[in-house]
């Protein structure tokens, strides 16, 4: 009984802080999504109107799906880069000892920098007029390759994805590195005795053991993509109430949410942004939990 009381007092501060400032706002967003709002005042029960409104009110209806698909492309592209390039570099790093520590540090540096800084940095680097990237291509005689990467709807999203991959690649490198270091050496030894080639050893022994890491990276990338905001905000130069990027080419759900929540003159901003928040929340949670189950069952 006494221990229970002690436990209670030990847990209480964390419980209160977490409940009031993290859990309560999320629950209240859920409640808010079922009400119609007039500024900051409730103006009647809305049922599911806020949800259907997202899909039927012009011009929201034309912004939601593009933002969704851009977010998915953002996730898929980043995840692919992390689990291929990131994995390759981690494996190479594990095999090749020269300057390993230094290289690992170098690879991790971009990951530490914030999304906003990365976005601003690359927006300067990629500027078609004064950008060092264009200047560099010119200097190498490759000036013909230079283009307004962020100004062309065809290249804007891929550019944002590549910049994001550049930003986050340090994470899988470190994570795979830690996982590789944790693998029992005898697995590789056995295979080596069997006369397997390096590739076969990787495919049959190392890769299956890395599956949990690949899963974790994918889940975290998914969570990150659903929340993506800073990078695109800084890189594409967010524009008031309009979809971001040329012709809305780099608009993502995180930005759409921010726009609806803090839109100028949007009287039902609370209702509609909460509805979108709830949808995003459900999507994120379901995918994360399902993927987690799947990975656990496989490993």
């Amino acid at each position, binding site marked *: 009984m006494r221990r229970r009381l002690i436990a209670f007092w030990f847990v209480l501060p964390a419980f209160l802080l977490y409940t009031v400032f993290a859990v309560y706002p999320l629950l209240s967003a859920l409640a808010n999504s079922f009400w119609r709002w007039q*500024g900051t005042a409730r103006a009647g029960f809305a049922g599911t109107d806020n949800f259907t409104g997202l899909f039927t009110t012009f011009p929201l209806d034309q912004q939601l799906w593009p933002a969704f698909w851009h977010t998915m492309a953002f996730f898929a592209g980043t995840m692919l880069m992390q689990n291929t390039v990131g994995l390759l570099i981690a494996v190479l790093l594990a095999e090749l000892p020269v300057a390993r520590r230094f290289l690992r540090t170098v690879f991790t540096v971009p990951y530490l920098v914030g999304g906003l800084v990365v976005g601003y940095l690359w927006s300067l680097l990629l500027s078609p007029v004064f950008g060092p990237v264009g200047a560099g291509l010119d200097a190498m005689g490759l000036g013909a390759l230079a283009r307004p990467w962020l100004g062309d709807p065809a290249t804007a999203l891929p550019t944002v994805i590549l910049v994001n991959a550049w930003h986050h690649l340090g994470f899988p490198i470190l994570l795979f590195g830690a996982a590789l270091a944790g693998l029992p050496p005898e697995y590789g030894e056995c295979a080596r005795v069997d006369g397997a080639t390096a590739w076969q050893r990787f495919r049959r022994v190392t890769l299956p053991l890395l599956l949990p890491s690949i899963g974790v990276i994918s889940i975290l990338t998914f969570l990150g993509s659903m929340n993506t905001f800073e990078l695109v905000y800084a890189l594409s130069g967010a524009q008031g109430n309009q979809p971001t990027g040329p012709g809305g080419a780099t608009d993502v759900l995180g930005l759409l949410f921010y726009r609806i929540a803090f839109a100028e003159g949007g009287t039902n901003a609370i209702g509609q942004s909460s509805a979108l928040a709830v949808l995003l929340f459900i999507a994120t949670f379901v995918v994360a939990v399902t993927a987690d189950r799947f990975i656990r069952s496989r490993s």
Partner: protein
Amino acid sequence: MRTRTGFAVLALVAALASAACTATGSTDDRTTLSLWSWRPEDVAAYEQILDTFHDAHPDIRVEVKAYKSTEYNTILSTGLTRAGGPDVMQLRAYGGLQPLIDAGDLVPLDDRVTGLANFEKSSLDGARGKKDGKVYGVPLEMSTFQIYYDKDVFAKHQIEPPATWEQMLAAARTLQGAGITPFATAGKDTWLLPLYADMFAATRYGGPAFEKKVLAGDVTFTDPAYVAALDVLNQLKSFFPKDMMALGETDVQTLFATGKAAMIPEGSFALAPLKTINPKLNLGVFNAPPPPGAVVTEPLQVGWVDASYGLNATSEHQEEALQLLQWMTTAEFGQQVADTLKQVSLVKGVQPADPLLADMVAAYRAAPTPYLMLVDFRYGTPLGSDLQAAGLQKMLLGQQTAAEVAADIQAGISQWFRP
């Protein structure tokens, strides 16, 4: 060990306490007014201007805070009702300030600021409540939008400011042949696009006459004349920078100011920044000649009442704030706006300091046309200017036709607009 834990707790408490206390640290007994603006580039000029006010009102100190223009509305709408908000702040004109009025965030100034008599009645329209007709802001300035050209570049290629559409296109071709971008236009800062459309083609749809008809419900934005006007930008596209959609306003200002472009469609508010980038710039202005098929056959000058200064209803220093606003209605302040901010003051009798600005104002008095989407179609969401900006960007990217853009504008606006 015990002392160490004690220190850790102390450090934590100290960190929290110092975070809680405000950092204003005002040691004197003057009242500090907080003034918000959406022009960070003007902060230094404001401090200079406010020195005059401080001399006359030693008991008041005004602190200027400026936010990025694109973030300003968001910050203001959430900032007005909370602690840390402004006392006096720049307000968007026309529809832009209605949500603040509806929310009761602003104080009507009609009976409180006698100096409002120093303005023309029409100058106050930008700061008027749509429902009650009361004035909620002291007009700061009006803006006009036109084409600036580099006189030296024009002279070098023997080009005169064009009087007809054909002459303008011929000039553009000459410049392009010489490797100079004819028009420095920015597509990344989409808010400029509706202004480009009105500047090049208000004559095509008919300017103020069209405004009357569309407000009366006699025509809609799908009217062929309006669609044709939107399409004018398409016809000029080859004379814009080819990477226009990757360029922001300051990028193209720099292009123009460094001689890489010969003309730039810009606002009267851009005069000072252009001169800052290149003080030696030899500037002229003209308005686009009417394009083929134009309804109005003489050039029109786009202009509108822009910013005004309003009073936050929750300000704790109403009295002092009113003194500041009263001062903003004087010729003394108006002249400073003209001289130091290099903008067009609306205070009666104040003359623009720069002859170029005087030209713009004169052109506006002679043949005015409104910045249509700002003046008339920002009274509901989706905002007309947002719809037009997003649509024009898609049009210039080849994703939509002018007719589709017009249809989208109409569809969006008809959600709230009643003739």
